[in-house]
């Protein structure tokens, strides 16, 4: 078997971005959460918010560090492995990426140092501002990278001269047809992901009966937030689906494994899409619901894959299953929120052990949904890097041999398989230690080697009854 530099480069890009996306999926939401906790501490002076902020900042630092180092790798991928894509699209895409660096990365990096190490060095308001700046930086970053991705999905505002893209209208380039929906859907996904981590960790403490006061604040506050965000996310996802139907019909057909164009199409719950026979095996379908969901009309028409030449169709099975994983997780999340309200209204939210265990088990759900959604949209874009205009096969660096890329892919595989599990173990350790105010520095010679951070002495409100803070 000969090694194909194209396939290996695609695998490599998948590998490095799949790990990388897990970090912003968590840190974007967490940065906002920390900014919120810092604001609450600033305004109420309650010590619990300071403890929580310090605790989550420790986790944030580890994830952010891994996000930075895995993120530095990304722009270089464009050059090393996708040089023809870079050469062709740079006039249009490079300012978006450069603006990400200019508006976001420096902001995050400069203020993160102050957030992590500066609490005793700067006034309280300055520390609060640092926390907010880090949060804003992560959102700026999301804005630009989603703008870049959206342009690749639904390109606009350009002209092609000699096979290269040239800008015509910058506003059209940034605000492409799929951009607003993709941005809203992604940011909400990141917030929901963080939300389920916070709830999961809080529920774990309640289940183990540790740090009960802090855990209640985490669980209650965040379940409120998720009550808004999860249904909102389902609406946003639906809107992005409508947008995909309009601008990327082949992708939608692959997601639904729909081969023939038809109206009143069924909703396919499960099937094994068969690309050779152009049919679905073992399909389980609900009549008419497909049209209703995809077009908001029982008689709506959905385009099938047979409308597109074979060499312009994306792979079917991967988007089909990835999409179902994402939606399935969304439904599971909704169920969890519904149960939380049923328990909250009965004042049993904090001591129903099976529910706490369920919440802890739900901790990674957001990450899985983000990955599944990302796989859906990126594989669904194939065989194009710039949808409908530039093929993935025409984007790869011409000088690379299969052996070159195999070596680099192995390098990334080995390093990531050391780093990310080590990072995960570290996060688990920090969670085990919990939101404690005790200093973790070893006491050598009977004397703490560390300055003790004085927490403002304020009387805590006594916890409410068994019902908690709902």
């Amino acid at each position, binding site marked *: 078997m000969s090694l194909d530099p194209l396939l290996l480069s695609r695998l490599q890009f998948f590998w490095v971005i799949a790990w990388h996306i897990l970090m912003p999926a968590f840190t974007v939401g967490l940065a906002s959460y920390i900014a919120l906790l810092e604001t609450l501490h600033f305004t109420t002076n309650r010590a619990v918010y300071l403890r929580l902020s310090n605790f989550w900042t420790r986790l944030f630092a580890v994830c952010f560090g891994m996000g930075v*180092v895995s993120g530095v790798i990304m722009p*270089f991928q464009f050059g090393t492995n996708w040089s023809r894509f870079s050469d062709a699209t740079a006039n249009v895409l490079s*300012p978006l990426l450069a603006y990400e660096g200019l508006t976001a990365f420096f902001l995050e990096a400069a203020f993160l140092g102050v957030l992590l190490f500066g609490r005793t060095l700067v006034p309280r308001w300055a520390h609060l501002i640092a926390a907010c700046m880090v949060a804003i930086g992560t959102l700026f970053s999301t804005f630009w990278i989603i703008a870049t991705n959206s342009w690749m999905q639904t390109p606009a505002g350009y002209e092609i001269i000699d096979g290269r893209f040239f800008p015509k209208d910058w506003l059209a380039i940034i605000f492409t047809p799929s951009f607003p929906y993709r941005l809203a859907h992604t940011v909400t996904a990141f917030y929901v992901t963080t939300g389920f981590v916070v709830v999961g960790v809080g529920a774990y403490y309640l289940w183990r009966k540790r740090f009960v006061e802090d855990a209640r604040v985490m669980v209650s506050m965040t379940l409120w937030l998720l009550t808004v965000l999860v249904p909102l996310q389902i609406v946003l996802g639906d809107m992005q689906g409508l947008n995909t139907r309009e601008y990327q019909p082949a992708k939608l057909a692959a997601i639904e494994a729909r081969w023939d164009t038809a109206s009143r199409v069924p909703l396919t719950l499960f099937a094994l899409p068969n690309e050779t026979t152009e049919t679905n095996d073992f399909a389980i379908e609900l009549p008419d619901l497909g049209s209703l969901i995809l077009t908001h009309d029982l008689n709506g028409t959905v385009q099938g894959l047979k409308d597109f030449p074979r060499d312009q169709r994306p792979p079917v099975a991967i988007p089909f299953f990835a999409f179902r994983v994402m939606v399935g997780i969304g439904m599971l999340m909704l169920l969890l929120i519904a149960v939380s309200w049923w328990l909250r209204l009965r004042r049993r939210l904090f001591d129903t052990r099976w529910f706490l265990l369920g919440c802890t088990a739900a901790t990674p759900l957001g990450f899985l949904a983000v990955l599944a959604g990302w796989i859906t949209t990126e594989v669904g874009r194939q065989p194009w890097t710039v949808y409908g205009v530039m093929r993935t096969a025409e984007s790869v660096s011409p000088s690379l041999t299969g052996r070159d890329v195999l070596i680099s892919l192995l390098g990334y595989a080995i390093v990531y398989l050391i780093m990310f599990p080590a990072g995960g173990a570290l996060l688990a350790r920090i969670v085990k230690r919990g939101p404690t105010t005790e200093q973790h520095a070893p006491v050598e010679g009977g004397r703490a080697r560390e300055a003790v951070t004085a927490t403002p002495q304020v009387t805590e409100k006594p916890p409410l009854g068994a019902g908690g803070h709902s």
Partner: protein
Amino acid sequence: MIDFVPLWTIILGLAVFFYVLLDGFDLGVGILYGFADRREARNLIMNSIAPVWDGNETWLVLGGLGLLAAFPLAFAIIMPAVYFPILVMLLALVFRGVSFEFRFRDAEHRTFWDHGFCYGSAVATFAQGIVLGAFIQGFQTDGRHFTGSSFDCFTPFSLLTGVALVFGYGLLGAGWLVVKTEGTLQAWARNKGRWCLIGVVIAIGTVSLWTPVLEARIAHRWFDWPNILFLSPVPVITIGLGLWEWRSLNNKSEVAPFIGAILLFLMSYIGIAISLWPMIVPYQFTLWEASSSPSTQAFLAVGTLFLLPVILMYSAWSYWVFRGKVRADIGYH
């Protein structure tokens, strides 16, 4: 239409120079870290860069993206040509970057992360030096593509520039540590700085003699009359700086070794720029031939001219917050 190429040459030149200085000193600190044997010294050394390292590394991203944005043809040719040095650099930076958090929180594997930090720093530096050497040597192209092999970049010359950069970053790192530490640790940094300076002087000399031999155009640039007259201050100043650096490493001055190292880098940088001007893909494409469309450069220039000063301001502020000698109680413990 205004010609934005000179502006972008300056911006990119500054971004790359900032990167070399900033990540240079913290990679250098990482290299020297491997020579420190006491736990307390290592903690102090690491804490001297803990609050600033990821801001420094951000300039690498800006340098890469700036090249893509301003001179995309150069990006598309150079990156595949230095495929393996870039790979090795990125992987080394991964180890080095995560070891800040991991070393401190994962005490059982502290030795592993210690090694990750110092070898990661050294290997990343060496790889950057190879990229520099390959860049000076030029690339085999056809039309708008690199057509050589991914292994072309490994030559005796590029290995030399690799080693040179290790000494150079080591010198910057030593200068930084002299600023940030005191007592025995500072004396230790001065000692390491002297060793690095010897290496730097030998390296600059060798590269300066080798480059004109390598490429006749560079020899003409420097040695043709009247260029030799205008350009002779460059080597003269560099030699003077080397002597001054040696003196300040040996006397009591605390800031001078760092300043001297920066100026030595500046002179080397200017020297390379003089040799290669106006090429961005050496001997193939000029800055103007490789530049992106005027609309692209204009659109990005508007924001950059506003954002870059703001970035410099708040980056300076974050350095200001952590000013003074590194303290045991700020940073990782």
